[in-house]
């Protein structure tokens, strides 16, 4: 999943640095991701992983790093599976 997330961040995050050089915990906003770009990342994640972020998860902290994105997508998939 991390690789797919890296790919999405590379395509939509508009970072000022190379995504592959970032650790999973690196702050994406500090790496140049604007709030507009984070919205595009969010939409691409929903598309790729077939999940929907509820309003309470449309917060900066959720998209802060590759690790936090992975955790939230995992949480959403688990919720969807139990429905």
């Amino acid at each position: 999943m991390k690789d797919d997330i890296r790919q999405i961040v590379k395509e939509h995050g508009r970072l000022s640095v190379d995504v592959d050089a970032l650790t999973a915990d690196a702050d994406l906003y500090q790496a140049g991701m604007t709030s507009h770009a984070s919205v595009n990342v969010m939409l691409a994640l929903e598309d790729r992983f077939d999940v929907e972020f509820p309003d309470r998860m449309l917060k900066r902290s959720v998209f802060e790093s590759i690790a936090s994105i992975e955790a939230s997508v995992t949480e959403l998939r688990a919720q969807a599976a139990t429905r």
Partner: protein
Amino acid sequence: MADFRPGAPDQQSFLNELLDSRLLIETGVPGVYGRGGDFEEVHLRVARMITRAGAPDRPERISFPPLLPRRDLETVGYLKSFPHLAASIFAFSGTEQQAAEQYDRASRHEDWSEFQLMTELVLTPAACYPVYPAIAARGRLPAGGVTVDAGSAYVFRHEPSGDPARMQMFHQREIVRIGEPETVAAWRDTWRDRAVELLRGIGLDARFDIASDPFFGRSGRMLAASQREQELKFEVVVQIAGPEPTAVASFNYHQDHFATAYGIELADGGGAHTACLGFGLERIALALFRIHGLEVETWPAAVRGELWSA
């Protein structure tokens, strides 16, 4: 047609009082009013009070008409965030026969939009917008950046409403700061605090709140949450009419959004940041009429002194 938002009962009755006293004059379109009696005089006095407060910054004064090149609206990405609020200007371009058909339809108050084509112009949605390209055109900023007083400018938001404090066309008394990030952010915070004092000085019970812009749609809610978390926008609010206080001024830190869009650089070539503040002059005038009464002669002497000084 944009959805009409009816006003709350006390907003509706306030509007009726304003219309009865002819401070506002009905045009038939909600949110678009003529101004009569002392209305204009009051908001001009508020505008001057703000000019006096901003004089120590020694701003450069530049003002623009209430139209913006369409290209600038496109460059700043307004339609991504607020497609529902923008108004663009169309005009006729066609044959004599088309002109005749257009006239026929118009005479019967029918739809003549098919004869209208886009122009290069839109209505200005925010008074700071024309300032960025104008400053960018000068090349690198001088040391210390610039402060631009854009005066009182009419702006347009397509949101017809029964609340007299939500007009479709209204004045923003606008000042813009462009420069180093810390300088710009500090300037924004200073003005926010100064605005509360200024408005309290004319008898308005003002305070400030963290706020967000009305970004459109679901992505909009994510942008709004992000804006709030970063405290990029403050509003000074005053209770006018309705269930909640009304924002009468906003203080906006844009980080590098506009500077990047227009390539505005600091003296050393680094990226600039921008911030702007806008006072809603009609809302402040309405707040004054609401709190102090519809007759200016009966307002407290201290308030009249503050507004009518120099």
